[in-house]
């Protein structure tokens, strides 16, 4: 006779936003797993309607204070797709530099302040700093370097003000970028130390059996590690243009959460984020990054989500390395932005937010007023995969004490760096579909 037990976490700590976990299990197995998102809906898609297309980057940035650049980039690329303009190579390079900054600050925040405390048994980075001051200071130094890029190009770290449809309001002179160089060089060294350090963390061994294998989904581009452009590909052979997103993926309404679950039609859950990018684009990482992976004996394909902290550290190294290359080759764009003319149209874009694929779609009327908006953030795409992980994982850990098992579940959720603030603005869209 086995009694049913329940793991309840009413308010998950060290994630962005408000979420809860409910797991019901006994010795026979796991009966119920619910990752509840109780963050209140904010209705972004609704109030974007009627706004001018040029306002979308600044409005959608407010969906997330952790990854505002990602929202600005997806919004801008979608508008440019609608209006048929292409950024010049110089403008595209500057955007990439800005995005490197956001990847660095967001990943450093997650590695050192949100995730590493799980591996070493601390409640927070501040507590960890009492025993490991050098490690936490290194994390803060990395984060600061990422923020320095975003501040310089964007004006400020949170909700930058300098990007616009077509390009930037103001582009820097080459000499203005030079002060970044030393900081980024030091940061790259600190990133190498970080890769070595995270590879020594005690890491739970978890791998799904073949019948439950993940489908990893990320952008892919022939010339670069994916950020702003490319096709959407997967480890199960998906290979589509971004404008085919809606026919390939669908959002399912699930009762217990304020975010919709995104699935591949007729196939189910999938996995976006650093591990998906890494597994699908390893050969496009910089040589230094690939060498470091080899140096710590980390394979080019990773199936253990607890090791996402290692993948994130490799992406931080890649971002520093690439940012330095972009600085070396910087040529100030002739024009800060490309002029566009509004037209009745629909535009699509997906970019790689730190947490994974971020899809935007907008319809405009002939004056450039937004008539329809759809935004699919990474966390709602990973939500089902997170729940499935817990369902498959818990039976192996039944010998653990309850407190330990709860911690392990929380750590498993943090593997995905869920951004719950991002995931919760779907409600209105769903309601409108039904009405």
């Amino acid at each position, binding site marked *: 006779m086995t009694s049913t037990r329940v793991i309840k976490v009413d308010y998950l700590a060290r994630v962005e936003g408000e979420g809860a976990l409910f797991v019901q299990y006994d010795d026979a197995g796991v009966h119920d797993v619910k990752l509840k998102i109780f963050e209140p*809906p904010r209705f972004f898609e609704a109030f974007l309607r009627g706004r001018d297309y040029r306002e979308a980057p*600044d409005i959608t940035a407010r969906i997330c*204070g952790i990854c505002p650049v990602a929202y600005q980039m997806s919004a801008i690329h979608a508008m440019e797709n609608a209006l048929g303009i292409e950024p010049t190579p110089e403008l595209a390079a500057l955007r990439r530099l800005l995005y490197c900054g956001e990847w660095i600050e967001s990943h450093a925040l997650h590695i050192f302040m949100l995730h590493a405390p799980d591996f070493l048994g601390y409640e*927070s980075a*501040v507590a960890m700093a009492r025993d490991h001051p050098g490690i936490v*200071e290194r994390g*803060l130094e990395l984060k600061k370097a990422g923020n320095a890029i975003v501040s310089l190009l964007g004006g400020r770290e949170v909700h930058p*003000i300098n990007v616009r449809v077509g390009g930037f309001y103001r582009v820097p002179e080459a000499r203005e970028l030079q002060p970044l160089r030393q900081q980024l060089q030091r940061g790259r060294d600190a990133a190498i130390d970080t890769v070595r350090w995270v590879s020594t963390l005690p890491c739970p061994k978890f791998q799904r059996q073949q019948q439950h294998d993940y489908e990893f989904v990320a952008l892919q581009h022939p010339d670069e590690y994916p950020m702003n452009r490319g096709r959407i590909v997967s480890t199960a052979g998906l290979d589509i243009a971004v404008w085919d997103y809606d026919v390939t993926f669908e959002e399912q309404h699930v009762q217990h959460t304020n975010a919709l679950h995104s699935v591949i039609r007729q196939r189910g859950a999938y996995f976006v984020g650093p591990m998906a990018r890494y597994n699908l684009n390893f050969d496009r990482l910089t040589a230094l990054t690939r060498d470091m992976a080899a140096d710590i004996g980390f394979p080019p394909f990773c199936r253990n989500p607890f090791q996402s902290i290692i993948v994130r550290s490799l992406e931080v190294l890649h971002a520093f390395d690439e940012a330095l290359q972009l600085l070396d080759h910087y040529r100030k764009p002739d024009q800060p932005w490309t002029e566009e003319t509004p037209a009745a149209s629909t535009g699509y874009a997906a970019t790689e937010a730190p947490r994974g694929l971020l899809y935007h779609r907008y319809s405009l009327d002939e004056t450039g007023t937004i008539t329809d908006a759809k935004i699919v953030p990474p966390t709602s795409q990973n939500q089902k995969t997170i729940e499935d992980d817990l369902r498959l994982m818990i039976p192996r850990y039944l010998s653990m004490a309850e407190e*330990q098992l709860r911690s392990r579940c929380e750590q498993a959720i943090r593997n995905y760096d869920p951004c719950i603030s991002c995931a919760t603005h779907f409600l209105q869209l769903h309601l409108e579909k*039904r009405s």
Partner: protein
Amino acid sequence: MTEVGMVETSGIEASTAIEPPPKLAVWKFTSCDGCQLSLLDCEDELLALAQKVDIAYFMEATSRQVAGPYDLSLVEGSITTPDEAERIQQVRRQSRTLVTIGACASAGGIQALRNFADVEEFTRLVYAHPEYISTLSTSTPISAHVPVDFELQGCPINKRQLLEVISAFLHRRQPQIPAHSVCIDCKLQGNVCVMVAHGTPCLGPVTHAGCGALCPGYHRGCYGCYGPKENANTAPLSHWWQTELGADRADLIAGFRNMNAAAPVFLRESLAVENGAATKANPVPEKSAPGPGQNPDAPLGKPGP
């Protein structure tokens, strides 16, 4: 995990039995997390701060939760659900000093754009899905629900100003946060005026300083993310936009209805423009007006008859 023991032992060093450090709490309501992130973005000061104060409740940064009361509560986000309206009362009861951080907590945030939505349409949507009825039809600032000791404006806040506010309240003095306009900061920085020189619409003359006059420095007009300055005079600016810059009413309404759409001064101006400049015919209650018994769910931005 066995490592948990390390946490226990590492706390012992606080044995200098003088006064316990003040307790800081950070609370989240409806928001994007960006303002509380500003605290973690203080990379050079964070660890020093953590030695001066006891970070007793800060869910984004730590799983440690120390019970109240708290000496200083920083509140991010606006009130958009009945549960939040209840929770803010609890937070106030546990907080000696309560400071709101950011446009959501201080003015309702960008989600207050729902306050302008057709309420009938909204209700129909809600009734179609009664399970979601727990969402209020308005987004309101913290001050509409409980007394607030200080409001730090900005979408997002400036992290230097946040440190100033924390420091001020820990030393029981008033924070030094200038309430003048973005224009003053532009002059101090020697920025060329984008409105006069380039004809770019700018909300700088009526917007609270604090960002460092960022947008004009990057050759764009201020879009008002810091909310209204003290004694902002919006009507002459609207007039200037229309007569000198060729802006139409839709431009003005969009300009004032952004991250601080429900801030009383901006709200009044957008309604005045919408209703044909009949400002005095459409009085809007001041933000300090709501008292006990006032329905926080009452629509803020309902156009006058």
